[in-house]
């Protein structure tokens, strides 16, 4: 049991990064009531942006500057995509929004993934490590993972501040609870949609940028984190930001313990087992409310 602290630390560190993905997906879902299936491609863009920034422009020691810059770039792209492609689904002539959003974001994901392969090749690029191996209190952890987790915690804190402590955050929460009500109160809900989409994909890009040295940079590197993000939002309860964060850390721990006590080969499958168990026992998720219907 001497390795217990190490296992817990590893689980919590991955949990912080999963939380970034899951919070991004939930945030977009809670405002626009759609799932962005191209989330993994925004993760991928974040990782490429970070790779280019720290190898060509900033240098490896300034990795913590590369992350916010990558996020800003992806945020702007997200704004443009939302305005051009997704905003029309709230127009007067639109029906069947789910269908439109699903098909368009899946097409977008295919488009971006293959464009990345054409432009940058199918190669796996390996950015320099952020930090060397860190040893503290008998635990030694991979420096890049530690840096990534620290970055993720800072961003989660900033996100919490934005949502709970600012006027804009209150507007987001209001619009998520009741779109029409928020509109009646004079909030421009459509502008919030754009911002929410931009912030959501920027969080995915941050996860990609932070994890670039750990999981490397290639066109399909977002797939695994995205699947876990989707599993987490159901486990935590669809639409619940708190649920997403809690479930992300839980999944991190489940994976970490599972790979030590069962088998590391199945690490990426524990999330699916967790999801199925959750759907079986408590389909509304940890923090979700049982769906009420007319």
């Amino acid at each position, binding site marked *: 049991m001497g390795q217990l602290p190490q296992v817990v630390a590893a689980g919590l560190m991955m949990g912080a990064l999963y939380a970034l993905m899951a919070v991004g997906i939930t945030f977009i879902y809670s405002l626009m009531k759609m799932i962005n299936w191209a989330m993994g491609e925004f993760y991928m863009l974040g990782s490429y942006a970070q790779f280019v920034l720290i190898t060509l422009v900033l240098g490896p020691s300034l990795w913590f500057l590369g992350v916010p810059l990558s996020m800003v770039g992806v945020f702007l792209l997200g704004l443009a995509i939302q305005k051009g492609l997704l905003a029309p689904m709230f127009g007067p002539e639109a*029906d069947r929004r789910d269908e439109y959003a699903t098909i368009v974001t899946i097409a*977008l994901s295919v488009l971006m993934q293959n464009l990345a392969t054409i432009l940058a090749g199918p190669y796996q690029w390996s950015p320099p490590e952020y930090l060397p191996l860190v040893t503290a209190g008998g635990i030694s952890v991979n420096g890049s993972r530690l840096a990534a987790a620290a970055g993720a915690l800072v961003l989660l804190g900033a996100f919490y501040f934005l949502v709970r402590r600012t006027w804009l955050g209150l507007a987001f929460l209001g619009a998520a609870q009741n779109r029409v009500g928020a509109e009646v109160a004079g909030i421009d809900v459509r502008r919030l949609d754009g911002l929410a989409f931009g912030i959501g994909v920027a969080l995915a890009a941050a996860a990609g940028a932070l994890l670039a040295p750990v999981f490397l940079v290639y066109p399909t590197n977002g797939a695994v984190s995205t699947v876990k993000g989707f599993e987490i939002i159901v486990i935590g309860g669809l639409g619940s930001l708190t649920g997403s964060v809690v479930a992300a850390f839980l999944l991190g721990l489940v994976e970490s313990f599972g790979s030590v006590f069962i088998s590391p080969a199945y690490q*990426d499958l524990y999330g699916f087992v967790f999801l*199925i168990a959750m759907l079986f026992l408590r389909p509304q998720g940890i923090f979700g409310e049982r769906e009420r219907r007319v």
Partner: protein
Amino acid sequence: MGKLRQVGAASAPAAAPTGRLGRAVRRGWVILPAGLALAVPLFLSAYGVHVGIVALYYAVLGISWNLVAGYTGQFSLAHHAFAGLGAYASAGAVLALGFPVWAGILAGTLAAALSGYLLGSLTLRMRGIYLAITTWAFAESFRILLSVNYQVTRGDMGLTVPLLLGTLDPLPNYYVFVGLTAGTLLLAAAVLGSKVGLRIRAIRDDEEAAAVRGIDVVRWKKFIFTLSAAVAGLAGAVYGHYIGLLAPSQVRFTEMAFIIIAVVLGGFRSFWGPVVGAVVAEGLAEALRLSGEVRMVLFGLFVILLMRAYPAGLVGLLSALGRRLGLRPRP
């Protein structure tokens, strides 16, 4: 049929074979594609026939996906995984248990149906988004499972499986796929023309209203999803025994995306849409000799434009043209 047509379907006329067309005209319409499907490969090279098989494989997957997504309004994102499951389960039955190939294909179909039933039972009680997320997670997990268990599945090295007809010559296999496509179309027509077809369309258009009218919503969603998974498993198993080599890459999400692209291109929620879309998409890509990536970029772009501007797809375009020429009554 005509009475059921709803707001949602206004832009995409459901061209089911039970339309208001005269019987003779209807038969005439079916003879044309059937004749083309039977005759054209005789003039193609072996590679051309192989492309035809791939197109028909996607057509079958597209028809089965369209039943769930287009007609019932439930987005499954695991049809490629059901096909992969059918193929690997059949391979397992044949290689490990010594089944003959036809029994293996049956086992693969049943395995896909069973997993569809289980996934459906867990998620179809809730909003559609749960099905989409769970099927996506299932597909990715299945792919990872195949790669991780390389001692059993031989992972990316590929698993060699016995051939269906004992030959790699595409022409006889092509006719197997023509039969499979025709069978799937008949099955879809039977389902859509029956009361079940009315029920699932009612569920798509308004789930609450359907439930109030006494339709067991969850039961029929599960039924159609299980049926559709079975068809995908069958197609995957037959395709696996035609190609003779299985690899986890057949369960990449790109495959699912291609099914969606083909259906949307041909006409989402239209009877012939998946077939037209699959044949046009696969044929066009091969005729232009595009690389895999360029092809997917163009298709992705095209689907986005289509969704924005003309969601009825090619079949919608054709029937609009037909109406213009006076071949079909106006809706």
